[in-house]
Structure formats: structure tokens, C-alpha cells
């Protein structure tokens, strides 16, 4: 109940006066550029249609998750810095409800950018029966990744002494998780495959590629979804357990 009130206000702040609309606009511009390039490449026979859908979907998920993390990383440390956290902590609302409300607000950004990505996937994938599959993959994998990253962003935000620290730490983490997706042909060796599997981001992206591009069935490589699911569960538990203790007036370690 209280979490709903907080989520409602946080969403209004994000979308009516915050950076929600601008971030979504920037996201759309990026997808437009990528989609246009993919479409022209397709004509030039460099990209097969599924490949271009896969490319746009992976970028849509990656950037969407990034934006969600940015919003989450600002949620607590930002309020601390603006001096508005104390009056929130002074209400009888539980710390858990505060965390949940902020998590929902961050996820609203993911929901919005996902909707924005739909027309791009449709225009690239129409003709081959791949649009529905791409949308479903984006929804499932993207939501899993966005949830765990939003939770991690909130944890980092709650622990950070300043907003800058929180954003920097979150972006560094995301970069570290995404970097391996750029390595060529990772899962050919068994060590490489293990590395791909334990990193939820690379595992999720690899799964998208297998189903969308390689034509695997959904159930064939389900084991790649273990780490994204574990990441969601682990971060949710961490947030539920430590949230009430670390959502407090001062960030950093050892104070308050």
C-alpha cells in the first residue's frame, strides 16, 4: 500500500519532471540510427534479416538495462544529496516499502523503453516469422536483466556516500558485465562457455542469439537462463535483507 504511494510519486517525478522522457527520447534516437543502418546493411547483403533483428534487440536490451540502472543508482543517494531523504525516512513507511517503490519506478523506465523498441523490431523482422519471438525474448531476458540491475543499482545507491560515487560504481559494474559480450566467439572453449554462463548479462544475450539467430528452440538452451534468474533472486533477497538497514540518512560504510 505504502509502496504503491511511493512508486506512484516516484513515477510522477521521473516522468513528469524528471529525466524519464529525455532518456526515452535519446534511446529512440539511438535505436533509429541502429535500425536504419541495419536495414541498409540488409539491402547490401551484409546482414541477414534475423541478424539485424538480433542486433537491434540486443542493443535495445543492453541500453534499456543501462538506463534502468542509471535511474536506480540515483534513487537513494540522489535524495540524500538533495536533502529530501530525511523527510521520507521520517514517515512511518517501512524502509522495505521505500525500496520497493523506488524499484518499481526504475522498472517503469524499462517498461517504457521496451515499448519504444517494439516498432523497430517489427519493421526489421516483418516477413520472417521472427518478430513475436524477438519481442518475447526481449521481454523475458530484458526484464530479468533490468530487474537484477535495478536492484543492484539501489543497493549501490543506498551504500554510496555521494550520487557521483553511486553512478560511477554502477556504470563500472555494468561495463564489466557487458564487456565480454563484445569478445568474439566466446563460448567455443569450455572455459569460455562457463564464463558466458556465470555472467547473467552475457548468458542472457547469448541465449537471445541462440534462439533468435541460430534457430534453437526455447527449451534447448534453458541452462543459459540459470544465471539471469539466480541474479534476480539473489539481488531481490539482498535488497530485502539489507535494504532496511542500509536505507538511512548517511551512506558509506561505518557511519550512522
Amino acid at each position, binding site marked *: 500500500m505504502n509502496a504503491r504511494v511511493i512508486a506512484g510519486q516516484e513515477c510522477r517525478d521521473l*516522468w*513528469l*519532471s524528471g529525466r524519464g*522522457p*529525455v532518456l*526515452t*527520447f535519446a534511446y*529512440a*534516437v539511438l*535505436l*533509429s*540510427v541502429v*535500425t*536504419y543502418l*541495419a*536495414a*541498409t546493411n*540488409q*539491402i547490401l*547483403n551484409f*546482414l*541477414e*534479416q*534475423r*541478424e539485424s533483428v538480433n542486433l537491434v534487440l540486443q542493443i535495445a536490451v543492453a541500453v534499456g538495462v543501462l538506463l534502468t540502472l542509471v535511474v536506480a543508482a540515483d534513487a537513494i543517494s540522489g535524495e540524500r544529496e538533495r536533502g529530501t531523504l530525511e523527510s521520507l525516512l521520517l514517515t512511518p513507511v517501512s524502509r522495505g516499502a521505500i525500496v520497493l517503490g523506488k524499484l518499481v519506478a526504475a522498472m517503469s523506465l524499462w517498461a517504457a523503453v521496451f515499448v*519504444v523498441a517494439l*516498432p*523497430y523490431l*517489427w*519493421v*526489421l523482422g*516483418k*516477413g*520472417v516469422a521472427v518478430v513475436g519471438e524477438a519481442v518475447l525474448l526481449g521481454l523475458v531476458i530484458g526484464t530479468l536483466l533490468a530487474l537484477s540491475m535495478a536492484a543492484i543499482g539501489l543497493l549501490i545507491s543506498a551504500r554510496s556516500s555521494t550520487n557521483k560515487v553511486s553512478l560511477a560504481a554502477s556504470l563500472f559494474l555494468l561495463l564489466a558485465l557487458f564487456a565480454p559480450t563484445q569478445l568474439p566467439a566466446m563460448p567455443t572453449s569450455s572455459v569460455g562457455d562457463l564464463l558466458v554462463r556465470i555472467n547473467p548479462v552475457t548468458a542472457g544475450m547469448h541465449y537471445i542469439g541462440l534462439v533468435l*539467430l*541460430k*534457430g*534453437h*528452440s526455447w527449451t*534447448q538452451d534453458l541452462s543459459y537462463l540459470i544465471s539471469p534468474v539466480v541474479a534476480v533472486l539473489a539481488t531481490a533477497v539482498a535488497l530485502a535483507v539489507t535494504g532496511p538497514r542500509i536505507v538511512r540518512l548517511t551512506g558509506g560504510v561505518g557511519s550512522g
Partner: protein
Amino acid sequence: MRSRIGTRLLLALLVLTLFPAMASATVEVAVSESRITGTVGQYLNIRSTVTNTGSSPTGKLIAHLNVASLNDVYVDLEDWTAAPTQSLPPLRPGERAEVSWDVQAVNAGVFNVYAVVLPNGSESLSVSPPIHVDVAGRRTLSAGGALPIAVIVPILLGLAVFAVRRRLRNTA
């Protein structure tokens, strides 16, 4: 897992050395589809099941995928798949194993794709039924299809941003 494979291997060796004449394993290869259609550049996932239908364990097996053109299109297997050959653990009688290949249809045309299992000894090859693969030439998509979306979506969102900003200014 590894130790189980180890014991099986040991068992197989034992059987092979003790009863060389009787060790005639029979392996059957089945594929999940008989017909696939696609377009040039598309990846196809070829899945097969290898079953030991004989009465004795097999040795280590090698599964190999092959692509043959039915209308004189040149096929370079290396282009179709980077790893046409995969090894399988020995199979006990009645045991089965799944093998799958990611294959990219690099040429248009009609092809037969089939899997071969080579035993380690001197027994005969086992071959799967062929999969009839019909690869169509590329359907060219006009860039005109993507352009309207690529233009309209940012414009709509830009208008939304503008509206929100103006509302903020007006109530200030």
C-alpha cells in the same frame, strides 16, 4: 559424471578385448526434421539423436554433418558450419545421445543435409536420413520500410518531451 564415463569406457574396452567377435555395436542416427526451408544467411539448427541399438556398448563415436547440393551449387562445408565434426561419449546398449549443429545457409539452392556417425573401430558407418533443405534467395527489404519508423518514433517522443517541459515551465 567424468568417472561414470571413465567406467563406461573401461567396460567397453573390457568387452572389446574379451569378445572381439561379438562386439558388433549397431548405431542408429535420426534427425528431428525431414524438410527445412530458409533464406540465404539464415542459421539452421540441425538436431539428431544417436542411439545404440546393438547389444553391446560402443566405443567413442564421431558424428559428422555433411551438406550435399542437389542442383550443382558449390558447397564449401567450412562456410556452412565451423564445427562439422563432434565427438560423442561411448553409448551403452539402448542409450541415446543428442547432437546438434548450428549451420548457416550460405548459398541459395536445394541441398541434402545428413549426419554420419563413425565408430572408432572397423564397423560400418551409420547415416541419418537426409534433410531436404530449400534455401531461397534473399528477399530484399527496402530501406523505405525502416525509414518511416526510424523517423516517426523519435519525433513522437521528442514532442512528448517538449510537452512535459512546457507543462513544467507553465506551472512554475
